[in-house]
């Protein structure tokens, strides 16, 4: 069975339903599946729980799904760049679960690896640990966190072969590899699909076993904080 789909609409067909949990890769606007996010917006699916480190910016990335009120809950570590998010949250229209960034990454990794829970020192003695089991190992306290599995993971990679073997580029890798493992269905958008055999097997970051559907897209790739230095005269 082929994994390659013609476009975003056909790739998302039959996998979305109201109230579902979606993991969306990326850090800030870097390495986000921007075409698949727009596809979710156009599909009209609502009541989403979205697991993503950030919430996009107003009008771009996950900000698009916030603008249309398709998101009911976010599980994130930092949402400071999105005014609409802050407004909806403070108005009680949006549920928010903050996870420390490393805990979020590990919850996703664990979910994809079949590990239901783990203990971490991160967050012990803070709001994050409230209501969770705390246990002592070798004299130090650790809090129990659970693994996360999503109904759908949407992923951005740089390159894929026709069997879904993925290569990421620079810091656009971030949350994408773990999320690819933790979706019951994983859909990946890439800048280039190449024939099987043209990627050195030693250079593959995510093996194709985790990838269900694949589309080639053109990304806008917005820069959130353009910072430069002066050339020396």
């Amino acid at each position, binding site marked *: 069975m082929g994994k390659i789909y013609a476009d975003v609409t056909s790739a998302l067909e039959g996998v979305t339903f109201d109230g579902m949990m979606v993991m969306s890769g990326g*850090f*800030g*606007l*870097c*390495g986000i599946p921007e075409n698949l996010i727009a596809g979710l917006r156009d599909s009209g699916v609502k009541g989403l729980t979205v697991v993503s*480190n950030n919430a996009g910016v107003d009008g771009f990335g996950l900000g698009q799904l916030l603008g249309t009120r398709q998101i009911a809950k976010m599980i*994130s*570590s*930092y*949402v*400071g*760049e999105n005014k609409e998010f*802050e407004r909806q*949250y*403070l108005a009680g229209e949006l549920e*928010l679960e*903050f996870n*420390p*960034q*490393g*805990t*979020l*990454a*590990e919850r*996703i*990794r664990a979910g994809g690896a079949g590990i239901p829970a783990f203990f*971490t*020192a*991160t*967050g*012990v*003695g*803070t*709001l*994050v640990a409230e209501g969770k089991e705390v246990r002592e190992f070798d004299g130090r306290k650790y809090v129990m966190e659970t693994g996360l599995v999503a109904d759908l993971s949407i992923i951005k990679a*740089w390159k894929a072969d026709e069997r879904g073997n993925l290569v*990421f*580029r*620079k*810091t*656009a*890798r*971030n*949350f*994408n*590899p*773990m999320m690819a493992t933790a979706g019951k269905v994983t859909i990946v958008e890439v800048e280039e699909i190449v024939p099987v055999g043209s990627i050195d097997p030693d250079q593959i970051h995510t093996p194709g076993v985790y990838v269900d559907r694949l589309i080639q897209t053109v990304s806008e*790739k*917005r*820069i*959130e*904080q*353009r*910072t*430069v*230095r002066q*050339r020396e005269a």
Partner: protein
Amino acid sequence: MARTREQLAERAAKELQDGFYVNLGIGIPTLVANYIPQGMTVTLQSENGMLGMGPFPYEGEEDPDLINAGKQTITEIPESSYFSSADSFAMIRGGHINLSILGAMEVAENGDIANWMIPGKLVKGMGGAMDLVAGVKRVVVVMEHANKHGQSKVLKSCSLPLTGTGVVSRIITDLATFDVKPDGGGLELIELAEGVTLDEVAAKTEATYSVAAGLQ
């Protein structure tokens, strides 16, 4: 004279040691990178998935796939490596990073730190701060001594929601430097900024502290 932001960064850079792997927080801590001594090898970690952070790119060479944890465009250097967020925090949580220099809203005399949330007001989130303070071997806070209302940020105990408990080893402010002594030993004033007096620090600090020999 209180230390300026640049002088704070320069002072914080004295915490670096040759061979260190270091994570710098957003704000003044980021400026520490400008004061790494010549000839010293320090590798900067960016928790979004990079070791060996280079400087900002020249105009026209920005790459949207290459940013730091503050979402700023950066560059790679010959020793750079990239990895996932899970690997990045395994590195942090597993104690493989030598030093974290970060800002704070409040620090308490027992090493508690609050730097992520003001209830009812600020809902940005903790990002990687809780993982960093819990996992990195040594945590140094760099901050203004007082908030914008003139109240001490070095406290007996934090009033804001905590980022971590008993995790800070040293506090560098625009007025002074304090060590948090291990095993509940409390705060010790170890250094005054140039031109700052013991009386001034005493007047502007809510926390109790001892004064190191030689400063009295």
